[in-house]
């Protein structure tokens, strides 16, 4: 199940989840940037938990719920985190953003009103080379506050 849709595909056992998502399903929003699990750009959510799709064999998640960046908006309405990233100027080159947004989503689901330090810790597995993280942290904080006022994460 990817983004709420059931897929039936035949893959080789050696195929990584990131390759299956990108090459077999056309879901290129998931990014590949290191292949060693150091940068977090390939983060997707499996049953709500962030995992590194560049280190995950696709066959190991076959009966699970996979959520990628393409699946978090509600139709044409952006997810509050996506909107907050735009509004707070948290997006520069954008390559880390899909993974960053998904890690932030997992964080807010576990801890709906995190402090700045908790956000910093929650995003520590997602490297960004452009922003210096300041506006990324602002964005996550803003999204958390929106959710606290009745929005939904």
């Amino acid at each position, binding site marked *: 199940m990817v983004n709420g849709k059931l897929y039936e595909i035949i893959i080789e056992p050696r195929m990584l989840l990131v390759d299956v998502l990108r090459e077999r399903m056309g879901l290129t*929003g998931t990014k*590949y940037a290191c292949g060693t699990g150091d940068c977090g750009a390939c983060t997707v959510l499996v049953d709500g938990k962030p995992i590194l799709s560049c280190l995950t064999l696709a066959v190991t998640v076959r009966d699970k719920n996979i959520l990628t960046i393409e699946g978090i908006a509600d139709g044409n309405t952006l997810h509050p985190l996506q909107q907050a990233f735009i509004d707070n100027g948290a997006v520069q080159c954008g390559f880390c953003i899909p993974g960053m947004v998904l890690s932030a989503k997992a964080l807010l689901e576990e801890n709906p009103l995190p402090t700045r330090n908790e956000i*910093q810790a929650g995003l520590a597995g997602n490297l960004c080379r452009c922003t210096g993280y300041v506006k990324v942290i602002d964005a996550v904080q803003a999204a958390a506050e929106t959710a606290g006022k009745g929005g939904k994460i």
Partner: protein
Amino acid sequence: MVQKFSSVGKRLPRPDAASKVMGAAQYGADVSLPGMLIGRILRSPYPHAKIVKIDTSKAKKLAGVEAIITFEDVPKLPFTRSVMAEGFPAVAYEGENLDQYILSDKARYMGDWIAAVAAVDNYVAEEALDLIEVEYQPLPAVFDPEEAMKPGAPLVHEGYENNIAGKIEHPFSCGDVEKAFKESDYVVEFSGQNSRQKQAHLELDVAVAQWDTQGRVTIWSPCQNPHLAKKALARRVFDIGEGAVRWITPTVGGGFGARMSFGVEPVCAMLAKVTGKPVKVVVTREEDFAGWNSRTEQRQTIKIGVKKEGTIHAIKQKILSDSGAYLSHSGSITAVNMQSALGLFRSPNISGEAKIVYTNNPTSSGMRGYGNPEGAFILQQAIDMAAEKVGMDPVAFRLKNIKGVGEPSMWIPVALDSCNLEQCIKLAAEKIGWKKKWGGWGKKKEGRMRSGIGMSIMTHASGAGGFLLEHSHAIIKLNEDGTAHLTVSPCEMGQGILGALSQIAAEATGLRYEDIHVITGDTDITLFDIGSHASRSTYVIGNAVVNAGQKVRQMILERAAKKLKVFADKLDMREGRVYVQGAPEKGLGVAEISHDAIYDYGTTGQHIMAVGSFQSVSHCPNFQAGFAEIEVDTETGIIKVIKYILAHDIGRAINPQNVEGQLQGGTAQGLGYALYEDLVIDKITGNTLSDSFATYKIPSSLDIPEIEVILVEEPASSGPFGAKGVGEPGMVNVAPSIANALYDAIGVRINSLPITPEKVLSALKSKK
């Protein structure tokens, strides 16, 4: 008069943000064409070796392999990786050395490109690399630039005696420095070096190439200078016409100077030519780290003579740059080091020289700041040392010696017409509480944890007007519905330039920001521009956009004048609506004008559009002061940055949110440069040891201190709505201000980057 803007100065969302948060933005690796092959590169396991024989027969037999190419198969046309070389005036600059081919017949660093494979997928391509049999004859190698210059050292390139790739006399040479040192009351000298910081953009290098039946090639690749790259690929690499190359720049996942050099495009184009199919060449993070791009390591000595009243009397600067195996940008960044470091201070006597030397290290290049952060780390510490000798406060010493309006600027000097450095220094000093926190020179601090405060200043260009090719062109075309297409050719690598140029276009035309659609990233469509580097795009391209916008606005007003039956000069336009001055209720929307101009069934049909141009003659320098407050653990040597404050002379912030983003991001890179980032190359084998994000540490979200950005907005007369550049400056002051704060905290100076705990502890130990 207070100007009221509709778009400029506002925190508007950038046009590329939505597609990026949705995962819809298409980067190079996301480009996929029917029948596309995957290309991979075979790299040398030796730092210096002759290739005796290459046997590709086994690899060629592997199912799915379509082509294998070696030195034998590539054009024998030498080129340089630096595509910027095309932007240098031939008379003023000899250019970077044309010292390499698509694939090499001799390995010059561990990782040099020996052969390439095109296969049906990455798995097969990787397997084929393993099946290529190369017989190498290892040669003695040299990894130290001093050693490389000694007689008898192994020659990296034939024809470059003592491995000297280039020499530069100080561009600001004046007076008689040796005499001036004798006349000085104090002389200080400081030597040290920067590290090979890696750009470490998250998007890996990638290219897709496809030749058509007419002999034209299309390249898809992240590139900061697509028009120059187009020319270099056409003329230098393949000897074809510029018209035969189309360069498409997809969304770019970070640049930081790395995309000013050819990456895998030449080898990709070659594989596509040989196979007759589209090819995508991909690299791994390991290949990227041990590759063809990093900040150039420069060993520097700065000697400063000062008069006792605190004026700088003489400066001498010596630099030895290690270009690695190929010259790429190392020559020009060495020149920029000299210009930017000494563009700041008045000195009646200046001299200096630089040598750039080949070694068997990986190729260096330019990274954000392009020579400036390299120079600032040494110079700004030497300036503090001079202030200490004279017994002056570092703030006061700098204020006494900096240049101001009317004095010569950093590059080929022009008289400064906008300089708010003094204001930057004063504002940031006040904000960090300098007077209270800086306790004077030689103040003894006690205890395990010791706090310190330090500062640094910088100037950087807004483009290279007066020095490089610096003209730019923009097209604004009005659509029937009152929206407009803005066609420009910067490189949006994350800095927000498409938003800034849209805001400028909206302001200059009088249209709404949301009605400006940017067309970019295709050299078949855009007009010539040198691309995004040297913090130039807002200033130079922005001015071309203003020019186009003013023309379009005038055309709209003239058509509206006929409809409204008033003179055009009595009309105004704002937010997409034309109205009579003094009677705003009398007016009409721009859609009505643009639609009726095209669908004019009479004899005055018109498509409202204009080309705007700008020739930059001044590089309109920007300025900045940075202050760091740190705490040093004298038992572990760990430096914690408590607070970093910078004040930047921006002229005008077209979009303050994005300007802050540039400065915060620059500060983070500066922090990594100061404290952790180090491309470690084994001095015996030439192997790059830090070849992953696990072994090469870039700052994470946990490493970010409190960063405060102050924008000083005094419009520069030559900038678009007064704007100056901001792309690179954020990272320049961080390392030197931390180094100066460290001296304040514990009384030791560290002269090499990064400032690791080991260095701090060993300096403390030798002090005792």
